[in-house]
């Protein structure tokens, strides 16, 4: 979109599709996006992006007799992000309640145990130990504050997870070193095999 040699089509694009491209980005962006960063990635001028954002806000609010959506576009902390519209808090809370039982599932507990003993550990490494996809479980644990993103590997971009103080206090210990040892299994599995019987 950097080139300006194109014809009519080009002129039409920013007007018609900018809003759609914006809402595409906003649907998947986790953090509030500044106008500048939106403009940069769309290759569009900031004023045009500002206008489009304003039109989207009005669109979702149903200003011109349209539908008022169950979500809204809000500016928070210097950026724009899609949030649930306030009127639907109740509905969403009910949903969250049914999705978050007061007890962790067995799968979540086992994943937490793997992270506790192997931290810091990437999601891929957890998955290969657990032999299942752990994405949603990791999100649950993050949401519960039991684990946190320790660091991101510079090369692979893989996020590594570690346990938090919340877990320590739940377990009634002061540091992760106080966890009971579960070796020799932890070494690499090849040791202690002879004694297994």
């Amino acid at each position: 979109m950097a080139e300006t040699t194109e014809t009519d089509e080009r002129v039409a694009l920013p007007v018609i599709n900018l809003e759609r491209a914006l809402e595409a980005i906003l649907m998947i962006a986790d953090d509030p996006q500044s106008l500048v960063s939106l403009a940069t990635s769309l290759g569009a001028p900031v004023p045009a992006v500002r206008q489009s954002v304003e039109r989207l806000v009005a669109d979702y609010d149903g200003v011109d007799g349209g539908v008022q959506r169950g979500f809204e576009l809000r500016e928070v902390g210097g950026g724009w992000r899609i949030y649930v519209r306030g009127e639907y808090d109740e509905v969403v809370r009910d949903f969250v309640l049914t999705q978050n039982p007061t007890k962790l599932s067995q799968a979540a507990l086992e994943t937490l145990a793997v992270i506790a003993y192997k931290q810091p550990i990437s999601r891929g490494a957890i998955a290969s130990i657990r032999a299942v996809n752990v994405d949603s479980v990791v999100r649950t644990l993050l949401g519960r504050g039991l684990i946190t993103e320790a660091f991101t590997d510079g090369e692979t971009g893989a996020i590594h997870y570690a346990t938090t103080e919340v877990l320590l206090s739940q377990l009634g210990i002061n540091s992760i070193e106080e966890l009971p040892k579960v070796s020799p299994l932890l070494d690499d599995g090849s040791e202690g095999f002879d004694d297994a019987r």
Partner: protein
Amino acid sequence: MLTASSPGNWSTVAQSPSEAEAPHALQPEAGGNEAAGFSVSLSNFNGPFDLLLSLIAKHEMDITEISLSVVTGEFIAYLKELESVEELDKATEFLVVAATLLDLKVAGLLPQGELVDAEDVALLEARDLLFARLLQYRAFKEVCAWFAGSLEIESRRHVRQVRLEEKYRRQTPELVWTLSADDFAALAAVALAPRELPVVGLDHLHAPLVSIREQAALVVSLLRHGAPVTFRQLIAGVDQKGVVVARFIAILELYRGAVVAFEQLEPLGELTIRWTAGHWSEESLASLGADYDG
């Protein structure tokens, strides 16, 4: 299970029988051409079926009686190149297929008898089974393209997957935590235990396992300071076959180590074992039966 219904089964799947019968399929391509055109490394092939399929594709033909002979020749020729030790393991995967193909080729070369004897039927069955498995393999291979395509397309799609807004997160019900640190450790032990190793399961063949070393230690303790003992006495009261076998192997091992000697007056007669070793240390026991480990 697929059995031979008729020798013509394969040709119902054949795309153009006329081409398969064409003379060029018969001629083993001129020597030079073959050598140059068919130099492949094992890594190109996933397995024997893969190789077979590619050979068939290379000749743009289906396997009929005639072309089978050509393909068999090349398949065997290819196998001959798999001699290095590291490839030996993989090469074994090809052997069954190679043997079947060879059988079929030989049958094709021999004059056809009028009567169908049991061997012919067996051969037909083998061929149909091979072809059926090849067809099945080809079907899976073909559908792979769909899998690859779908995975590729879907990997480019983006789904809304965002952190739960803080206000909802705060409203999630308080976690009910009941695990002690020890419970948690036990859970970790389970979760981290090495997954069952991918080996052919033999456990059902000889469970429970008996240690030859333990049996040897027992035999030593019985013989070392006493009079000769018969094997019957040594296994008195043992009702597990595995233990008897292990104890016998232990005795053989001790014999090999020149620790004991046998006496048997007649074939299948009473076996008497006596202690012969001048010196004996517990270390000798440690290395005993090592051949049977692993």
